[in-house]
């Protein structure tokens, strides 16, 4: 337990000292937020184009909770896999293991760091969003918190799985960035999902991000708890955890 606390603290400091990861996980969602805000403003769509987009709410009300999910997704697809694969490749995991630091401390500390980063990233998104576009505040905070935790655990598990199977930093970076952009564009953090048609919509529905965004948006916008999406996200968490445990290698 003492080791987990120490390691978590050390890993947080290491995260902050790594500017590229900080930019990728914290600054990128904010940049997207301003781009989307600049393009769409925050007036709810009236359905003049035939389909009501942004679920009928203001675009920024749509994107702010969606970008909570984007921060989690950046952690799960890029930050965590690259970090873990790099640790394995360079012999850091081996060094930790030889000193009796358990796999639970290693992954537990990463979960703690992921949580802290996701909270900071989400707070930055909401504060900057409110300052610039005055969208409304989350309506059902009591439901938003468990949804946030569920989404985070799910993406962290995905990150552990990718970090377990990807053999090198390069592989993790390559695959991680592809997953990141595919999920971002088709998963509901890019163009509004209503304008995605055919194959794009099908693929979008297969991304964990689409469902994570739904479980975050629904309480934020006052639509209640999304049972179906939360089951899917929980399922992803369980399967990814099992696979990560199965394939985790120290070296």
């Amino acid at each position: 337990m003492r080791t987990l606390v120490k390691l978590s603290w050390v890993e947080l400091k290491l995260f902050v000292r790594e500017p590229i990861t900080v930019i990728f996980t914290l600054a990128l969602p904010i940049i997207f937020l301003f781009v989307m805000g600049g393009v769409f403003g925050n007036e709810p769509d009236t359905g003049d184009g035939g389909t009501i987009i942004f679920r009928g709410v203001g675009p920024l009300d749509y994107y702010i909770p969606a970008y909570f999910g984007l921060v989690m997704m950046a952690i799960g697809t890029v930050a965590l896999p690259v970090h873990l694969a790099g640790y394995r490749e360079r012999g850091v995991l081996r060094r930790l293991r030889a000193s009796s630091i358990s796999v639970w401390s290693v992954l537990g500390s990463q979960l703690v760091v992921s949580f802290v980063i996701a909270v900071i990233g989400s707070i930055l998104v909401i504060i900057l969003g409110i300052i610039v576009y005055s969208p409304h505040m989350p309506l059902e905070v009591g439901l938003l918190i468990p949804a946030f935790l569920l989404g985070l655990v799910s993406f962290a598990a995905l990150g552990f799985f990718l970090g377990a199977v990807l053999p090198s930093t390069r592989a993790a970076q390559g695959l991680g960035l592809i997953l990141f952009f595919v999920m971002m564009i088709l998963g509901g953090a890019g163009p509004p999902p209503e304008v995605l048609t055919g194959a794009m919509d099908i693929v979008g529905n297969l991304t964990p991000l689409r469902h994570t965004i739904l479980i975050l948006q629904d309480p934020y916008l006052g639509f209640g708890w999304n049972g179906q999406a939360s089951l899917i996200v929980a399922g992803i968490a369980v399967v990814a955890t099992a696979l990560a445990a199965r394939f985790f290698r120290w070296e």
Partner: protein
Amino acid sequence: MTAIITVENLRKTYGATVAVDDISFEVAEGEIFGLLGPNGAGKTTTVECLQALRQPDSGEIDILGLDPRHNAQALRRQIGSQLQESALPDRLKVWEALDLFASVTPEALDWQVLLDQWGLAEKRKSSFSSLSGGQRQRLFIALALVNNPRVVFLDEMTTGLDPAARRVAWDLIRSIRDRGATVVLVTHFMDEAEKLCDRLAIVDRGNIVAMDTPQGMIDEYASEVRVIFTTDRADLSWLDEVTHVKKITRSGPRVEVEGNGPVLALVASALVEHGITPADLRVEQPTLEDVFLKITGQDIDE
């Protein structure tokens, strides 16, 4: 001798490659035990099995009454490991590494003292990536000691250290032993093995080919000393008659006489008797290098 480590018929293969064929040895509590051999002899694989970092194919291991296969975590808390291939995160600071590794056990040593002992006090706030090879090596040794281990494994610990730092390291390793810990040293440096180890095993192609104290090995396998001098005298055939002389080799004026026991005194007196008083007469005692050459038939660096 109370054995703190017992290894019986250890074997480890990687596919068709036999890394460790059949290795058995015991290490007594409080000694510095060395595994000496060329690269690829199986030394590192052996100690990695002992540290529960690899699963042996077969054989029995007992360290501190624990079996690495079943009590890996409990064992790792009580041993110290300096690994040949490992690293720390680039931006981790020296003090953070020691503080982290000290947290695994309440028995841990005061890492500030280790920083001083290993000459890292000035580097305490430096990041791992900014350290030189020698500094990294010293940090890894300090990390191996920070949990106050009863057994310390040091795998090629002086690689990357300059000669002065090596000597300091040797003294510190002796002080670890003198405090009561047992040290298992993997090395391919002859001088290190000879000067530092209380007992050592020579490992060749996955097997132990000799095991004794360094002096015991020299006495057994390389008892012959070499007497060396230069002379212009052409005919030295009478030297063959001197007792204890085994072999004479000559290249130009340089003469090398191999023999044993009191051969130096006998050769010297025979030279004087024949009117030769070389100013450069000297004797070379056999070293571990001669033992190694004799046993394995090759130089360690080959």
